[in-house]
């Protein structure tokens, strides 16, 4: 084999190696995308489970303990004092109103998979004219913002699911 042929062979191998490298990389990316689809499903189901629990709670501590219709906004929880109201309400089983979730981070394992997901909560009053706008004063609307991400095993690409839920005060006379 002449040195020209040897060089040509080496060049062909380098070309083939580069092509194969790209090929396997693409396969890996496709696998990651499919896997993150499964992660997305689990993260969504976990976040919607919390939403379901939140939807079953009272609008405010005040409306949980009183059957009377509310006409005065000032009796609602202070916007700067969201979160659980008394020490006995510091776990999800004991929450009694929507804003008790504020500031909490809950971790949940999707049984059977070994995967763990953390969900962070933030609850604020929102403007009645524009629910995307956080209000620093009391209104009859509260918005819960949730961020869910996989904590174990750590995801190859950091990916956070963000969901929001708005609850409004209503009363049947």
């Amino acid at each position, binding site marked *: *084999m002449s040195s020209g042929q040897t060089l040509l062979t080496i060049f062909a191998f380098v070309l083939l190696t580069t092509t194969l490298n790209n090929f*396997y990389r693409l396969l890996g990316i*496709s696998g990651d995308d499919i896997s993150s689809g*499964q992660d997305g*499903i689990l993260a969504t*189901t*976990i976040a919607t489970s919390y939403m379901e629990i939140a939807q079953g709670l009272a609008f405010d501590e005040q409306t949980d303990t009183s059957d009377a219709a509310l006409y005065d906004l000032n009796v609602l929880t202070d916007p700067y004092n969201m979160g659980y109201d008394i020490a006995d309400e510091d776990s*999800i089983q004991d929450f009694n109103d929507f804003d008790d979730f504020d500031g909490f981070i809950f971790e949940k394992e999707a049984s*059977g998979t070994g995967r763990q997901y953390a969900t962070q909560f933030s609850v604020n009053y929102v403007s009645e004219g524009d629910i995307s706008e956080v209000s620093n004063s009391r209104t009859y609307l509260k918005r819960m913002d949730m961020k869910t991400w996989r904590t174990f095993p750590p995801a190859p690409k950091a990916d956070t699911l963000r969901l929001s839920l708005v609850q409004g005060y209503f009363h049947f006379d």
Partner: protein
Amino acid sequence: MTAIMDVLVSFIIGGILLMIILTANDIAAENNTVYNGDMLVQEMLISTCQVLEGELRNMGFGVAETVTTIVEADSGAISFLTDLDRNGTVETVRYYIGPTSELHNTQNEGDRLLHRTVNAGTVSSIGAVTIFDLSFLTQQGDLLPRPVPLARLSEIHTVEVTIEVQNPYAPLNPMGDNPQALFSSSLWQQTRLASQNTRR
């Protein structure tokens, strides 16, 4: 002599290249099938869960406060009351997992049908699943025994539903002495309230 050597070396190099390309082709084909399977099971899972989720969401709708919403609670079956068509008449909806023999003709030995009935009428199948597991929790988060005794049905506050879907057919992994099917699987796990209006 040199010419023969050149031909031999060319054969060897050509053979190596052919092997590499054939292996890459095999891997691509296998991955393609597995990824297709993954996508398929995720779609199957979502379509099954959309039906289930929609109805569990309305569990207890139109049911009097004094009546227990869930009338049967087992690991693989649930019956609950809801006013499906909003006409003031409460229906009993039942979801239950069928035996694996119903899908014995598929390659996957674990898949089975998830059935739905309304007022014990015609059975309809809403999808094929490999796991349909229900857990029942009290307001304090305590797990209730399954099947939940009749006297304790009213204690159910939340229902945790776990569903796994695997594809019915999958390619065989050629590695090892006992080739195993590469089934794709997708899991769904959600908590639902037995009644939406417990604190409102």
